[in-house]
């Protein structure tokens, strides 16, 4: 035991005198090299009395760890300050790592998801490239519908499109599951828009769908209002105004009074009977509501971003603000 302390104190004085990397390496060999003093000390362990063994071993290990730590410290100081020692100055900035952050749109999407999860919704996903059937036909948008104009939709083949909304997920979920259904589906969607401050050829939506035996427009209003209060604050006023979407009826847009203006947030409505028919759900027995909102749009309002393109340029000066 005494021997360990002796080695340790010798080491302490030796290392103070080290001023070059070469000297440090000599010292390493002397103490913790393969035939170094500490290494060989381990071989004495077998000669120690059984009762003392654990204590001796622990001491030895401790000494070894301390010596190794001292080496590391000395090594980095030799490398960086080249011999001279900086006097401690607590006002110098601390050592930092890069800060990882979620993309602002994910931050907003997470907020939206968490609110709806707390309302009992589960999260679903669907492909970004869809068949014409899922993106249009099954959603009561037949081929002759004016909303199908070529300039809005990006096509892969005549029958395969970049989905123009997250609504196809409604169809996929209803095909797979029986009511009750209560889901939201966030994701990327595409439109044939030339990029400018308010348009991006791809953007992000959250789709919502609830189907049950007694689901009404009143429930839709309730859930949207509750969402708006959670997302935009208790004082957020909400208004509904009639609108048109082929896959819901009645349809509405809802606006939230935010930052002194009515902001258009989302489209919503009661699932159209034709949509139910296309997935084999009886519209006489079941009813449902659906809604969709733009994640990018909510993020622009929330963060006061005036140009949607900023979200996709990934300039660190932008991303690091969130």
């Amino acid at each position, binding site marked *: 035991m005494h021997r360990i302390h002796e080695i340790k104190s010798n080491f302490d004085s030796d290392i103070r005198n080290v001023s070059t990397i070469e000297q440090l390496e000599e010292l390493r060999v002397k103490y913790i090299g393969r035939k170094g003093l500490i290494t060989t000390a381990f071989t004495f362990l077998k000669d120690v009395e059984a009762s003392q063994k654990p204590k001796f071993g622990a001491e030895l290990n401790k000494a070894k760890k301390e010596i190794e730590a001292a080496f590391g410290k000395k090594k980095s100081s030799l490398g960086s300050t080249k011999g001279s020692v900086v006097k401690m100055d607590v006002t110098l900035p601390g050592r930092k790592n890069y800060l990882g952050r979620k993309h602002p749109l994910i931050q907003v999407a997470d907020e939206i998801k968490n609110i709806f999860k707390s309302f009992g919704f589960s999260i679903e996903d669907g492909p970004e490239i869809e068949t014409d059937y899922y993106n249009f036909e099954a959603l009561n948008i037949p081929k*002759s519908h004016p909303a199908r104009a070529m300039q809005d939709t990006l096509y*892969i083949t005549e029958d395969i499109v970049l989905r123009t909304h997250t609504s196809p997920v409604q169809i996929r979920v209803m095909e797979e599951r029986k009511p009750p259904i209560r889901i939201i589906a966030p994701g990327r969607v595409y439109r044939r828009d030339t990029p400018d401050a308010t348009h991006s050829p791809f953007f992000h939506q959250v789709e919502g769908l609830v189907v049950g035996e007694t689901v009404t427009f009143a429930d839709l209003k*309730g859930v949207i209002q509750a969402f708006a209060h959670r997302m935009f604050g208790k004082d957020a006023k909400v208004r509904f105004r009639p609108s048109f979407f082929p896959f819901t*009826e*009645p349809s509405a847009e809802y606006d939230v009074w935010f930052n002194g203006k009515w902001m258009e947030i989302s489209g919503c409505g009661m699932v*159209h009977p034709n949509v139910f028919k296309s997935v084999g759900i009886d519209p006489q027995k079941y009813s449902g509501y659906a809604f969709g909102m733009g994640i990018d749009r909510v993020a622009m309002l929330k963060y006061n971003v005036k140009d949607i393109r900023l979200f996709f340029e990934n300039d660190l000066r932008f991303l*690091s603000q969130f």
Partner: protein
Amino acid sequence: MKISYKWLKEYIDIDISIEELAQKITDSGVEVEEIIPLVAEFDNIVLGKVESRSKHPDADKLSICNVSTGDETFQVICGAPNVEAGQLIPFAKTGAKLPNGMKIKKAKIRGVESFGMICSKEELGFEENSDGIWPLETAHSVGTDINIVLADYKDYIFDLFITSNRPDCLSHIGIAREVAAFTGKEVKFPEVKISESANHNINDFIKINIEYPQGCPRYAARLIQNIKVAPSPDWLKQKLETIGLRSINNVVDITNFVLNEMGQPLHAFDNDKLSGKQIIVKNSIAGEKFTTLDDKVRILPENCVMICDGKEPVAIGGIMGGLNSEVSDTTTTILLESAYFTPKNIVTSTRKLSLMTDASQRFEKGTDYDNVLFALDRATELIKQLAGGEIVQGVIDIYPKKIEQTVVPFNPSHVNRILGSDLDNNTILETLKTIDLIDTPKGITVPSYRVDIKEEIDLIEEVARLINLDNLPTSVTEPVYLDQPNKGTDDYISDIRENLIQTGLQEIFTNSMISEKATSITPGIDTVKILNPISDDLSTMRPSLLQGALSTIKHNQNRQNPNLKIFEIGRIFINNGSDTIPLQPGKIGIALTGNRMPDFWQGDATLFDFYDIKGIVEELMQKLQIDKVEIEPGKNISYLDNDQSAIISVNGAELGSLGKINDTVKSNYGILNDVYFAEIDLDILLNYISYDKKYKTIGKYPYIEKDLALILDNSTNASEVFNFIKSQGGKHLVNINIFDVFVGDKIGKENKSLAFRLKFQSDERTLKDKEVDQVFKRIIDKSKKQFNASLREN
């Protein structure tokens, strides 16, 4: 769609403010996107009275006027010949700014001071050219703000967004009908009295026949002779200009006027250019050529509605007229067409022709088939009034099969089932009645202009909107669903994202559409191409997250930030044959470049290297508790440096790759620093995440550490030695750590030394040195033999 407030008022009394009106229109389901005042708000302009007028002593054409504003009187020099004492006039005080930008200042004109200006219509922006000042007839008192005095002259343009189901709202009368429903006023239709000339009958001039009723169920026409094509009068010009249309001549302007008044598109033919005294409505044959009035040769698809004379087509019905029959300045006889075309036919034809017009946009959504004659008479009479001529007696109205009025079976109780309301049947039926949806024994009858109402749900929507959505009940007691999963795929993706962020990675979102050229750095993937891309730069779906990462690095490097530690989670796209949707696997892309740490005052910055990207991947796997990960050398990854590339696999399934971006790719992007990139398949990863975490007892007995430094051939992979030691270590070898790698002349040029720290521990007892030594010795001996290695002595 632009609606003029002044124009709208011709069809309905409005006794509410502009703002309230906008609110009513919005509540009806037509969104008011913008209200544009046609004349700006005036400032410092009031109603003045010319008290006296005298001649300027030094200028013949100037007058000196005293203008009263009630409490004050100003001396004003006026150059207008029509200024008279006693007139009420718009008076701009000093400090006022006129719409043309002119600022009114105190001035001295030929030696006489002037304090303000008497304004003309032109100066206030109400007309193009004025001859003199604007004497007003008004009951307002002198001194009143001119904005109030001129309220009736001012116009506002309502820019409306009309949803595609409501083509009946695409006109001033259509909007008036909506306003009527929400204010209780009545719509005033224009009075039309046709004054035909008794000399001729239209049947003597032309015969009309529909051979293609599928595309054109109704075709009506009138003939007007001896007209004079000329510029339109000011009122008509102004009306069209306020809603953004260009005035062309009286005939064309009238058809546009009626279109915007009541939504019926009309077409005027120069009757003298029609041959054979007949009109035949036919369908086109694919490949047929036709020159439209914009002088473009169109190659027609099949089944366009073609309006033909005795010889050839003269118009594409419902879409655009032909050059051969166009009305010109010398036209004297007009055949005016008013028709109903089948919406589906027009949609298909416009899409195939890539030709959309004001007319086609209305026909494709559905026009009012019952309004065909009224609109025809309205325009005919206007042409007679504005272009002279005689209306030939009679109207031709070919309507072989009358379109039946829609009757929708309706059970009022279904309203409450959908709306969650508590409305009684009577209220529901009365509500519908306000917009002429009338309850009859067969069901609810629907007016011809409401082409959107076809089934019960459409009526429920009408009830909802008429009652006002904000007045409908709101329910906040929703049932709790007990069958939702506790944690789903999305939650695991969130966990992965969280783990990456904790290692200091910034998340990015990049475009999933890239240029075809950019895909060349990731060859071997059958890419997905867009049929109608926005541009060449956005023509191909990304086959990898690499392109987005490199673009991001380039973008930031060009903005003086060369240090990035970024990741993206997103889909990539792989062609899966033209009959099915592409494969769209989720991927995680991670990229490192530049300084390993943010700038710090101590020490020189070190750059990211291979082991940083590898460490991040290893840590991620550790966090997700995926044990069986192997990262082995992987050659031939097109964008990676051959010596610094590796394949990541789990249980033999390939998860992805990582390594250093090679110089070719780097210089392609003009990136200066080295880039390290990893791409991991999200879907495969999710299969291996340990969803079931169970606690294992923490060892309470001391461990014994042994260090082993082997000198090996440089080409020996660390993982081989590591795995070998592991396989030889027995059950008590609980951990192996590589703590040093050494190369140098001391151990031979072709060699390297790997130092392993082995940790032995038992769950059941304290291990004896002897047994550990035994195992350790065996490991040493076997390793030496296996790898032809020697022990490093110091």
